[in-house]
């Protein structure tokens, strides 16, 4: 057992092992103050069959750990000739099942070595990119204390192409440092005539405690079970996950023999597993699946996070968002100008939440005229324009699970346009020039209308450039108004199919198109005033040519 801190807990565990008749050899880190160490030794003086091995300095990732393990193992083999399996544990390991069950389990498998051991090429465990290189480079500098020198020296060796030779053609293997080896295998490793060579080689390898025994066991073992009997999970930085009181049920159900690492103050865990033999589980194979999943999820949360969420501890820089928003949404431009009841119709047909112009200058037009919406998001234009991007991201996040649709147009705040254009979750459908319909219907002075039209046309044409730019990632569809009213049902059907909320078998109901009688003439008037409206496409001046009369057009189905 390797110990370096929390001696009271270590003592408890030592007594637990010992009470089941297991002899122990204990190694304490040399950096532990002598006084503390003596107190620990004294406290255990009444426990039979324990030895203390010579202390080494065990800094993480260095040879000291292996040297300590070697010496303690030798002591174990020499002093306790009846020992058949040697289990390497730490002071923060906690036996989860009665020790007798472990003894029985091992007795049934007298020649099996339990040691996780895999070649570097096959597993993505390594942290920091040093996989094969950890066996072909030298690492004289401490990673913890001298990170700079460590990194520089690695870079230097890469640059120069320095490579160490791996002795005797052994194949480096890696795995959990917590193993359980048979006397035969362990003694073969320790008494190898080439041990001198191996020790010299591995003492300069990076993290040798995860590769020394793992590699050499492959040379001698009769039967290797490549897994560790100790449940030990590592996070993305390579440090072990810690178990707390609230993991009690999880650990019970894992059926593992030993778990690490346990938080020293997890009283409930220690009480439950060290004093309570009735916690005995059915004699099954260890099954840490659920724990695996929980920790894998935790690592994913740390490294990828929740897409579309911006919060106090997740604020991704551009391109690293993993999705600007958390769900798909649709933006409609010009539709509510061209159709009289578009919003209501869309909500009915698709079952989605349909808002008005969310970025309108007066207020955010939430669906059903609400002034506050999910997440207590306010419709105040000032609040929205203070950070339009956060407004959109919040809206989509707050309503996750329900698709949002909203209207957009050249009258609205354009500050959001790039965020929408770059968002793969956005489905943008544009009828260009439809903003002219409300102008056409309005009762304003023509000079005002002309000015307004010129402005809106300018804004929209810039907006179209944005949508068509190479950085645009949204699904963009653009029709000119003339194009659209030629055959309005086809594009509508496509859009609605893509929203795909419900199985719509053809559009039974059609939104009502605005009365466009005289629209061609209206455009011509603008032209005559020197303002050329081109975004609508070609409208003939005489309205009775191509212009469909909406009242006559009968609804038809599109498959």
């Amino acid at each position, binding site marked *: 057992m390797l110990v370096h801190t929390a001696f009271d807990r270590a003592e408890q565990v030592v007594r637990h092992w010992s009470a089941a008749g297991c002899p122990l050899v204990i190694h304490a880190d040399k950096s532990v103050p002598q006084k503390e160490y003596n107190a620990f030794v004294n406290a255990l003086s009444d426990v039979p069959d324990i030895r203390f091995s010579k202390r080494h300095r065990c800094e993480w990732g260095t040879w000291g750990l292996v040297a300590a393990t070697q010496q303690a193992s030798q002591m174990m083999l020499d002093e306790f000739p009846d020992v058949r399996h040697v289990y390497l544990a730490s002071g923060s390991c906690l036996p989860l099942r009665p020790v007798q069950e472990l003894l029985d389990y091992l007795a049934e498998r007298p020649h099996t070595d339990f040691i996780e051991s895999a070649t570097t090429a096959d597993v993505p465990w390594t942290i920091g990119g040093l996989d094969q290189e950890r066996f072909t480079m030298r690492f004289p500098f401490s990673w913890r204390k001298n990170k700079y020198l460590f990194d520089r020296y690695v870079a230097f060796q890469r640059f120069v192409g320095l490579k160490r030779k791996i002795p005797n053609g052994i194949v480096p293997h890696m795995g959990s440092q917590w193993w359980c080896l048979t006397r035969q295998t362990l003694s073969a490793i320790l008494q190898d005539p080439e041990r001198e060579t191996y020790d010299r080689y591995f003492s300069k390898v990076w993290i040798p405690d995860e590769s020394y025994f793992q590699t050499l066991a492959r040379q001698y073992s009769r039967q290797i079970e490549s897994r560790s009997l100790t449940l030990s999970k590592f996070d993305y930085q390579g440090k072990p996950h810690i178990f707390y009181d609230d993991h009690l049920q999880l650990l019970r159900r894992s059926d593992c023999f030993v778990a690490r690492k346990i*938080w020293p103050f997890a009283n409930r865990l220690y009480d439950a597993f060290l004093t309570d033999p009735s916690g005995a589980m059915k004699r099954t194979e260890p099954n840490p699946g659920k724990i695996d999943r929980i920790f894998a999820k935790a690592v994913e949360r740390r490294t990828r996070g929740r897409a579309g969420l911006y919060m106090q*501890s997740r604020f991704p820089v551009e391109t690293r968002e993993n999705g600007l928003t958390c769900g798909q949404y649709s933006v409609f431009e010009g539709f509510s100008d061209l159709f009289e009841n578009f919003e209501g119709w869309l909500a009915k047909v698709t079952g989605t939440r349909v808002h008005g112009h969310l970025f309108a200058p007066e207020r955010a037009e939430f669906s059903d005229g609400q002034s506050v919406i999910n997440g207590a998001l306010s419709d105040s234009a000032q609040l929205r324009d203070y950070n339009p991007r956060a407004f959109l991201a919040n809206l989509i996040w*707050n309503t996750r699970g329900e698709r949002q649709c909203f209207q957009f147009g050249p009258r609205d705040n354009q500050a959001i346009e790039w965020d929408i254009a770059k968002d793969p979750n956005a489905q943008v459908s544009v009828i260009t020039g439809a903003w002219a319909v409300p102008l056409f219907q309005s009762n304003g002075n023509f000079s005002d209308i002309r000015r307004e039209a010129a402005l809106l046309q300018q804004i929209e044409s810039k907006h179209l450039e944005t949508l068509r730019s190479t950085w645009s990632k949204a699904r963009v569809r653009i029709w000119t108004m003339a194009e659209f009213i030629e055959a309005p049902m086809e594009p509508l059907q496509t859009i609605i199919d893509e929203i795909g909320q419900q199985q719509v078998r053809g559009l039974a109901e059609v939104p009502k198109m605005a009365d466009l009688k005289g629209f061609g003439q209206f455009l011509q008037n603008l032209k005559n005033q020197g303002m050329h409206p081109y975004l609508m496409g070609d409208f003939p001046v005489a309205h009775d040519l191509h212009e469909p009369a909406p009242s006559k057009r009968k609804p038809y189905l599109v498959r």
Partner: protein
Amino acid sequence: MGLWQSYRMRLRRKRYKVRAYRKHFSLRPVADRTGAIKPGDVLLFCTLRDEMVRLPYFLQYYRDLGVSHFLCVDNDSGDGGREYLAGQKDVSLWTTRASYKAARFGVDWLNWLQNKYAHGHWTLVVDPDELFVYPFCDTRPIRALTDWLDVSQVRSFGAMLLDMYPKGRVDQVPYRSGQNPIEIASWFDPGNYTIEKNPIYGNLWIQGGPRARVFFQDAPRLAPALNKIPLVKWDRRYTYVSSTHMLLPRGLNKVYEQLGGEQASGVLLHAKFIDTFTDKAVEELERKQHYSSGAEYKAYAEHLSQSPELWCKWSEKYINWRQLEILGLMSKGNWA
């Protein structure tokens, strides 16, 4: 960041430290029990004025989390809070009549106390109306969190301020001393926060919540900052710059992930809006001892006299930290 700017930040940090030293002369010890602080203890620092009614629950809440010692600065309380604190065995208390504003809203006083007593300790700096919530706080003591942060080599831990408010008028239900204020102010805004990055100090600037929604609709830029970094493994070189919103050296402000992942973070439940608030707002308006001459309190007083309800249809009722986690207001990060 260029060398020049780094150097300027260093000077600024030194200046704040000198300032803290200057301001500490106004502090008079009432009960100094700092000798009882043991290595590894988690320490709590706070300044307060006339908060007697909140103190019993405040102390109990943090004792239950596992805070070992409270170091408090009393700014001339007249409601018996000073005497009450002086009588608590795990509280060290200083008192002062000096200006709260001139001590940069108490930051100077606490900086000095932290530098003197907190070197090498995890320190929690909160107000009496702030309750710290972190992942697994219902099953794991704060020591579990700080131990984990130590192992992860993290020095500071962010916790956003979450404004809590009651349903109905703010002053409708009277608060009884010793009661959990969240029983009254149990509602919050779940998803209307905006974030910007402070280019100088590198911290996030978070605004929003009910205060922005109701009081600062017309001037969102003036809405109060909600970002806080209350839990820090203190070193005597560190200094808080403005409240607990940001620190120097700047590295301590990076409590968020920029590459898409999530760091662990908590929440400070801000139980400011209970019945004591209305009186407080009027008083603070007169004293003008708060940030930007109490402009914030002015806005409150105006609004609260008209429509004293912060609650809306989409307010969320507080249940536990897991709820806040799911809503995306805090995160477990890779702590499991």
